[in-house]
């Protein structure tokens, strides 16, 4: 049993966090459990198993930051907290820009903090299509535990900004279903910096919830360590070797169990380059992305989109059709880079920044892509399906209609070369307009499915608890596990599956951890 440590206090680096500045040579570390990655999945598993008394080591490629490190320097935060400075792309037509967190806390440090359980219809689909019988009932208790841990709650009304009020106004005017978002936050005060590290500490990311908990119960976290490969003895995972960023030093962790939580892009790549093959041949396949697009609406009145809670509402009117709408505040630099305008035109457009509202949508996709290894690095390939493109275009039309109902005077589209919209009639006419997808700006932060779980080892990569088929003492706890896209923000599902996976390990400790 590992003794509990002092809590993580802001302003001091806890002793359980080891960074590249602490490592001056090659290291060999022994542990009961090695967790690779410290995001929604990894941090959760680490905390659960550390609390159960196991010696847990976490290897995280990104650096360790604290709330005080999160500033108003937008691009500085992106460089520090995002993999490859946010310039990661799935190849296809159109290419899809995706973002992953790369820091202790993973993508929970940079996500919007939306906390939704997996929809019932999705769990029913998983039971039927992936043979995950009983998962819906089984996950209920795990969702409850996660929600308590990360304080899932509605927003305080006074933290909601003008952009979100306008979204609600438009939805109400059209009689559309709009709901208050549930978010992992404790009195969010609307700094609107979710995507750049919450500077108030209100967002209960893994960095301020599961990570401190894991440390409190004795886990050790090695930041700045990029895992090169998982070590194996036959089919049994025995640890991993990583390099310390910016140094020639190696960290070797020998463990009784390895949990891989590197996200849907890097998890399959790391398994593949470590020589693990699954009988299904599905490793790296089934990449879903929840592709999303955004529009920029310009109002006569000030919107000041950077003040107020991020995505305080979600429009659920079209959720059954795979579309969810939300308002998103963004700094002027991020908006400017999304516009095709330049020179004087860009200046004139940006002079109305305070009147701009950014709204986007999540699309539950129907086609999947895959992750391949190119020169030893993972590369995502994803072709937007025609039906998904049609759904996104319909979503843009509907969302624009909503924004005009809220009083927007002009809407800029995510389709390169498309004319701006000036009325609801324009929005409806968009459905008939020719907008070739090669000129679309599509982005995502939800990558899923590349190591899907399922009862049938000939069709899935892991079993129902995330244990890799045809491997021993190797589990996965991240969005790679999802058998299908889920149509809502995935963080809570990842955490619940990770909690369930950890419980499985505890229940089978004699076999997995002896």
């Amino acid at each position: 049993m590992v003794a509990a440590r002092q809590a993580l206090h802001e302003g001091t680096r806890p002793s359980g966090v080891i960074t590249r500045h602490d490592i001056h040579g090659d290291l060999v570390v022994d542990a009961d459990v090695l967790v690779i990655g410290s995001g929604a999945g990894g941090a959760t598993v680490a905390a659960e198993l550390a609390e159960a008394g196991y010696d847990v080591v976490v290897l995280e490629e990104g650096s360790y930051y604290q709330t005080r490190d999160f500033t108003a320097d937008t691009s500085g935060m992106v460089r520090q907290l995002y993999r490859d400075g946010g310039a990661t792309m799935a190849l296809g037509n159109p290419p899809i820009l995706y973002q992953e967190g790369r820091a202790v806390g993973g993508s929970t440090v940079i996500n919007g903090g939306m906390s939704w359980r997996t929809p019932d219809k999705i769990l029913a689909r998983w039971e039927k299509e992936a043979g995950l019988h009983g998962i819906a009932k089984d996950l209920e208790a795990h969702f409850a535990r996660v929600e308590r841990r990360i304080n899932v709650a509605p927003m305080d009304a006074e933290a909601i900004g003008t952009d979100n009020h306008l979204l609600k106004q438009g939805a109400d005017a059209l009689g559309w279903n709009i709901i208050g978002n549930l978010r992992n936050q404790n009195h969010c005060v609307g700094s609107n910096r979710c995507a750049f590290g919450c500077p108030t500490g209100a967002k209960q990311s893994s960095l301020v919830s599961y990570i401190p908990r894991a440390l409190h119960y004795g886990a050790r976290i090695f930041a700045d360590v990029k895992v090169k490969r998982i070590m194996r003895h036959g089919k049994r995972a025995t640890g991993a070797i990583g390099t310390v960023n910016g140094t020639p030093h190696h960290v070797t962790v020998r463990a009784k169990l390895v949990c891989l939580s590197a996200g849907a892009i890097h998890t399959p790549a790391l398994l593949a380059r470590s020589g693990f093959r699954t009988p299904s041949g599905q490793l790296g396949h089934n990449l879903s992305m929840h592709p999303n697009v955004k529009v920029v609406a310009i109002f006569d009145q000030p919107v000041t989109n950077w003040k107020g809670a991020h995505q305080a509402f979600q429009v659920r009117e079209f959720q059954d059709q795979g579309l969810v709408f939300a308002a998103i505040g963004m700094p002027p630099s991020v908006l400017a880079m999304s516009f095709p305008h330049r020179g004087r035109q860009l200046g004139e457009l940006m002079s109305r920044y305070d009147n701009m509202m950014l709204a986007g949508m999540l699309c539950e996709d129907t086609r999947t892509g895959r992750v391949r290894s190119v020169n030893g690095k993972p590369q995502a390939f994803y072709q937007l399906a025609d039906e998904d493109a049609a759904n996104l275009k319909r979503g843009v039309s509907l969302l624009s209609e909503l924004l005009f109902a809220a009083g927007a005077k002009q809407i800029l589209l995510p389709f390169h070369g498309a004319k701006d919209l000036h009325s609801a009639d324009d929005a409806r006419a968009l459905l008939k307009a020719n907008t070739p997808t090669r000129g679309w700006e599509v982005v995502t932060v939800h990558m899923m499915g590349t190591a899907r779980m399922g009862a049938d080892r000939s069709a899935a990569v892991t079993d129902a608890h995330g244990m890799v088929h045809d491997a021993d003492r190797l589990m996965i706890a991240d969005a790679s596990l999802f058998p299908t896209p889920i149509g809502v923000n995935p963080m809570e599902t990842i955490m619940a599956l990770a909690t369930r996976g950890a419980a499985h390990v505890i229940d089978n400790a004699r076999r997995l951890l002896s």
Partner: protein
Amino acid sequence: MRGMKEMTYQHSESTRIVLRSLVRVICPPEAAPIADDIVAHMALTIGASPAVLQKLIGTGLTTYDLGALPRYGKRARSLSDAQAEAYYVSWEHGLTPLHVQFARAINQLMSLSCYEQPLMMEAVGFRPGPWIDEVRAKRLRVFAADVARQEAQVLAPDPLRPSKPEAR
């Protein structure tokens, strides 16, 4: 604290000059006095991007610079304002998708860096620093008890934790 890639990348002199010449084409006129700051900021952004992208940008800028020679008899960096505008437009609506993509990428990178400059942020009324300070102080002042309660909850033993391990 910065990533290692970010610390190692620097514009070559040629890259810096070509980017400097593009500021007048891509950024609003009021950004002219801060052209050097914009180009310097671009180095940080490029430095954080994948190595292959860094190489593509470097190669693309060299091609862009030299590509003006057949038409204008001089490099892109030396064109007059009107020529620079016309030449960029020729790439923006270019012969191949690669021309178009490159022009778009440079536009995006430079627009980002342009509106990351304090002068430009101030011009559009974006003042996040004081706002963050204000709401952070408010949270700690108004909700201190709940904040402390949640911090304690994060570390408290969980009565719902699953069964005890079979073996240690």
